[in-house]
């Protein structure tokens, strides 16, 4: 039976329409996974020595101190990215398979997820280093097993609270507060959690406690899913009460207003698009890494240009690059209704432009870091409006991944970003402004560098009609391929 389940799983994986697309994507996915593994391995092997050299105490204790944040962050990441086991259960419901088997399999599947295995790349080498450094072997094993259980506990917590946004945001908020209050030394949560983690080492057999917890959590999840395995129970999709909205004030924009109204509803009412907006918002603060000098590598002035692009372009990148996939679920309607491509594209363009302007205004606080910081932001905005807004729409024509608006899974790291053409298009998006700036900066002065980038942006803005014509042509050319791709969910 298990073999058959695994067979189904494998088929659903390699027969997925999206899987057959780009070899590029597979390669990059591989590189991405490898990068993660390397980072974790590096952390595993390196952190012992790094902490020791930093002289902030016994490496194991230091790691234990911050482990609570590690676990919290893991939980947040899982909540946002890890897929839930309930999908694909429906067709199995009425078949002669015991429910307990289906549930066990679904839950078991989450155990072998990359989100769990990833941690082994940190914990295994770290434990090995500890033993080699002369820590008691039994103690290290106890500690190791304890954390292994905790990671899996996270796995099942995520399974249980999945889709309960309220619970998630409260928890995430609490951890954020804990982090902030620790930074300002109001309250230190690690004082209370570190002893627990230390215990796994000091008294190795206590590692059995998280394992017991894990087992009971598994059974809890098991009975929960078994009880709720009905179409109107756990497998039902959530419905929210709908409210008809007018947004009549947008009517003054004519046809464009019609689309803008729709796009605003699209953003407001769908989980996936809300995430895109949120991502865009967080990008505003991305510049803090550069301008506060928090990270040394970022201190070169060329990076500030990079920051400028990102600070104002968050929405542009997170939303814009998925045009037209946002409309994928009803693309045939858009293509057969009385709609001209130009109007459709303009509305998306305006949306991106408005968001860029709002980001620029919100980012005024960068003035605090000096005029140069805000100049980078401002110039970044001009470049985003003048050049990048076209480039994302252009790239969008080649993005043929249908988007499931109601689900947040795959919101990041979707394969779309990794097809060869969109990848090539990111070069002018990010590198070109840096190069232009660097040229101006090195040849004359920083100010001239900024002026050059702004000038390129303004030029792009002036050729709007021409750019639109070209993009429209590409969209038309790709129309049939796009329609076909959106049909395959």
């Amino acid at each position, binding site marked *: 039976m298990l073999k058959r389940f695994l067979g189904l799983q494998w088929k659903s994986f390699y027969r997925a329409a999206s899987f057959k697309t780009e070899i590029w994507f597979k390669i990059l996915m591989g590189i991405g996974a490898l990068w993660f593994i390397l980072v974790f391995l590096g952390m595993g092997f390196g952190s012992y020595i790094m902490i020791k050299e930093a002289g902030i105490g016994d490496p194991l204790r230091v790691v234990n101190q911050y482990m609570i944040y590690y676990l919290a962050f893991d939980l947040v990441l899982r909540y946002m990215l890890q897929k839930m086991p309930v999908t694909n259960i429906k067709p199995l419901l009425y078949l002669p398979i015991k429910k307990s088997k289906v549930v066990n399999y679904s839950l078991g599947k989450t155990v072998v997820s990359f989100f769990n295995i990833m941690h082994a790349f940190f914990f295994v080498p770290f434990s090995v280093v500890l033993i080699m450094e002369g820590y008691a072997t039994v103690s290290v094993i106890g500690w190791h097993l304890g954390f292994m259980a905790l990671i899996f506990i996270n796995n099942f917590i995520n399974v249980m609270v999945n889709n309960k946004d309220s619970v998630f945001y409260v928890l995430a908020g609490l951890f954020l507060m804990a982090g902030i209050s620790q930074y300002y030394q109001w309250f230190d949560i690690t004082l209370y959690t570190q002893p627990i983690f230390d215990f796994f080492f000091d008294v190795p057999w206590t590692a059995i406690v998280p394992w017991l917890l894990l087992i009971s959590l598994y059974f809890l999840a098991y009975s929960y899913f078994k009880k709720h395995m009905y179409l109107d129970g756990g497998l039902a999709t959530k*419905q929210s*009460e*709908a409210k008809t909205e007018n947004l009549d004030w947008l009517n003054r924009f004519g046809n464009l207003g*019609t689309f803008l109204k729709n796009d605003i509803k699209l953003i407001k009412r769908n989980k996936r698009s809300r995430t895109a907006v949120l991502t865009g918002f967080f990008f505003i603060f991305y510049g803090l890494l550069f301008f506060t000098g928090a990270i040394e590598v970022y201190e070169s002035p060329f990076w500030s240009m990079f920051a400028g692009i990102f600070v104002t372009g968050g929405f542009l990148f997170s939303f814009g690059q998925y045009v037209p996939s946002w409309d994928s679920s*009803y693309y*045939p309607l858009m293509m*057969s209704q009385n709609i001209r491509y130009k109007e459709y594209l303009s509305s998306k363009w305006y949306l991106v432009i408005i968001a860029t302007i709002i980001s620029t205004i919100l980012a005024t606080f960068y003035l605090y870091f000096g005029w140069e910081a805000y100049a980078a932001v401002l110039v970044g905005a001009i470049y985003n409006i003048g050049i990048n807004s076209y480039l994302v729409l252009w790239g969008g024509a080649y993005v043929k991944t249908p988007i499931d*608006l109601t689900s947040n899974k795959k919101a990041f790291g979707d394969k779309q970003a990794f097809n060869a053409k969109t990848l090539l298009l990111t070069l002018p998006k990010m590198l070109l402004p840096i190069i232009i700036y660097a040229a101006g900066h090195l040849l004359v002065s920083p100010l001239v560098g900024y002026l050059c980038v702004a000038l390129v942006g303004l030029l792009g803005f002036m050729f709007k009609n021409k750019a639109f014509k070209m993009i429209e042509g590409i969209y038309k050319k790709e129309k049939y391929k796009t329609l076909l791709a959106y049909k395959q969910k």
Partner: protein
Amino acid sequence: MITAQNLTKTYTQTVLNIDHLEVPKGQSFGLVGNNGAGKTTLFSLLLDLIQPTTGHIINNDVQVDQSEAWKPFTSAFIDETFLIGYLTPEEYFYFIGELRGRNKADVDALLSNYEDFFHGEILGQKKYLRDLSKGNQKKVGIVASFIGNPEVVILDEPFANLDPTTQIRLKGIIKDLAAKEGVTVLVSSHDLIHVTEVCERIVVLNKGEIVKDIKTSTETLKELETFFGG
């Protein structure tokens, strides 16, 4: 009104092959055929959602794969991909209305004609389209295709998923459209009884080719049943 000439569509196999087909203005045109006969393919070609391998379709002097000028007078409901899931039915109707140059009052006036058809389950329900049942979604899509006085209305399997009461009402609506308002209505269906009741002309597709082209009469149903039964 609509002319198809040398129209073929080939993937690995030829799924549609029509030498010549002409649908005059104001005709209620029925398309029947088994699964895979090419009904949806033909409709998709009509809406320029796929490209013909050879030949072309001319809709009111506009070649559909060359110009977009057919869009203002043509409307369709093929499947749920013609609905915008995150809108309420009202918002969806107004959206389509705006695209077709109709204001709210116009759309409201049109909708009031379909109160019977909606059976109190569509308007004012505080539900998004994605949360409506399949049948109710279909009602929304069908009525939306009547907005803006289109000259050509294309409905793929409009009777499937509808309850009997609604099916009967829909038949009345389609007949009226063609007879009273001169709208060219193209309907496909698996239900021979419905089509023969609604359409003046019935074309049978089999493996992509037109095998029968009948002017509907009292014997038509019998003829079709023999064809599909034998």
